[in-house]
């Protein structure tokens, strides 16, 4: 096995996902298949190759430092389920 049920549960927790026992088993087995398939990549000889971070060759895509109009507040908050005044409202988080 490439991945354990505990690891799947941990990653699920980090992603704030809740799985029941059956789901955890199912995803563990599916993720295992995927990781096994990825193993195939290790068969390629990459001696002397720089690791690549992107699939395209383009570099240095910049914009100039210019201010553009922002969203009107009403639109900015339009996806919020529970806004208050000019704020998004969320359950209290205490550091």
């Amino acid at each position, binding site marked *: 096995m490439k991945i354990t049920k505990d690891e799947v549960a941990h990653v699920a927790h980090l992603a704030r996902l809740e799985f029941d026992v059956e789901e955890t088993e199912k995803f563990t087995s599916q993720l295992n298949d995927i990781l096994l398939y990825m193993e195939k990549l290790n068969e390629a000889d990459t001696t002397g190759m720089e690791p690549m971070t992107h699939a395209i060759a383009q570099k240095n895509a910049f914009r100039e430092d210019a201010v*553009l109009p922002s969203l009107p507040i009403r639109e900015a908050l339009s996806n919020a389920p529970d806004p208050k005044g000019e704020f998004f409202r969320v359950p*209290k988080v205490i550091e």
Partner: protein
Amino acid sequence: MEYEPVIGLEVHAQMLTYSKIFCGCSTTFGEGPNSQTCPVCQGMPGVLPVLNKKVVEFAMKMSLATSCRINPECVFARKNYFYPDLPKGYQISQYALPLAEFGYVDIELNGGNKRIGITRIHMEEDAGKLVHDEHNPSSYVDLNRTGVPLIEIVSEPDIRSAEEAAAYLRRIHEILVYLEVCDGNMEQGSFRCDANVSLRPRGAEAFGIRAELKNMNSFRNVQRALEYEIKRQQYVLEGGGEVVQETRLWDDTQGVTHSMRGKEEAHDYRYFPDPDLVPIQVSDAWIDEIRRTLPELPLEKRERFLREYGIPAYDAGVLTASRALADYYEAVVKLSGKPKAASNWVMGDILRFLNEDRRDIRDCPISAESLAEMIVLIEDGTISGKIAKEVSEEMYRSGKPPRVVIEEKGLVQITDEGALEKTIETVMAANPAQLEQFRSGKDKVFGFFVGQVMKATQGKANPQLVNDLLKKMLPGT
């Protein structure tokens, strides 16, 4: 056992751009909540962040000013975690391939200079701001700050005391502000600092277990928090306990650090390269171009002031505290040709006036030209140093040049011997008892006569001339 603190600092500095790092929203501080957001910085699906070139240039400036090596290629990475101030569920930062590495700054301590290594400098976006409701179980989110450009400057664990930490921070702050890439405002959060602190037995190689300190929003608080934390860890270790690896928050009002429990498990950020942002390639030509725009840095300026103007190290330190002040001083020196007098006036009256009004040197009503002119007028004897104090106050109040003030108030120094002799004769005639005392050998009465003559001339008499004439005239013959 004697313990030695080992401290590393992480500074977050806001880059002084007009727009955010990946979108065109304004970075202006203090605007209405959520008035500076767009689909990109709100993290809507399907949007594409595009890097603000100015952020790279500013970050390169700081990297070069701290002798870092700029990597020929760097990439952005996603740092994944959930928090309501982070709408995308990840922060765009740099991880494995940062912009720059292996730098240093030199700090001045009582016992001489010390070099503090800089591990890396990388670019990232800021998160939003949370406002907690005092009465309801709610927090309010303002995303204006989301996507504001930051650089993170990570030091090597080279710092050995709270005092060294403060000196390092001041140096980093000073360089950022000199470069004009950060406004350095700690109250508004443009310059923030976290610290990693551990203790080890003096002489030991291995580091102890460290705590991370957050929430210190002034140089003084950083020093206080570190002093407290060093004592706390020492107490734990001396009691046979173990320091817990954790994040601790500085509580300014109580003067202690508190453990921030429960967030530790979240430190699994699963960084990976951000596919939305292509790599940044920095050519030698680009580095040279940026290097040419670097101003003279504070330490270089300080050394030059010592060398060229022959002023004390303390004065050079004060005068180079900001670029604008240093420029002002140099303009006065250039126009007056008197570096020491210029230093005395700027460090004395000018800074006192400005401090009293909490004004910046750029808003000083006395121009460098006016101050230089006044110094020349003192040198050539037109006014006495004492009168100059009065003149400078009036110049500061009215913004008028010294010649005008002197003329309007009739403050030109009396250097006319004949006129002064007459005044002295009057004074002598008016104080026969004191004159008698002087002539019977009481030298101390001499000062009384100087005072009387100055009073009679409203302080305008040339003091040297008064002295000479009194010496001649008082003894009689």
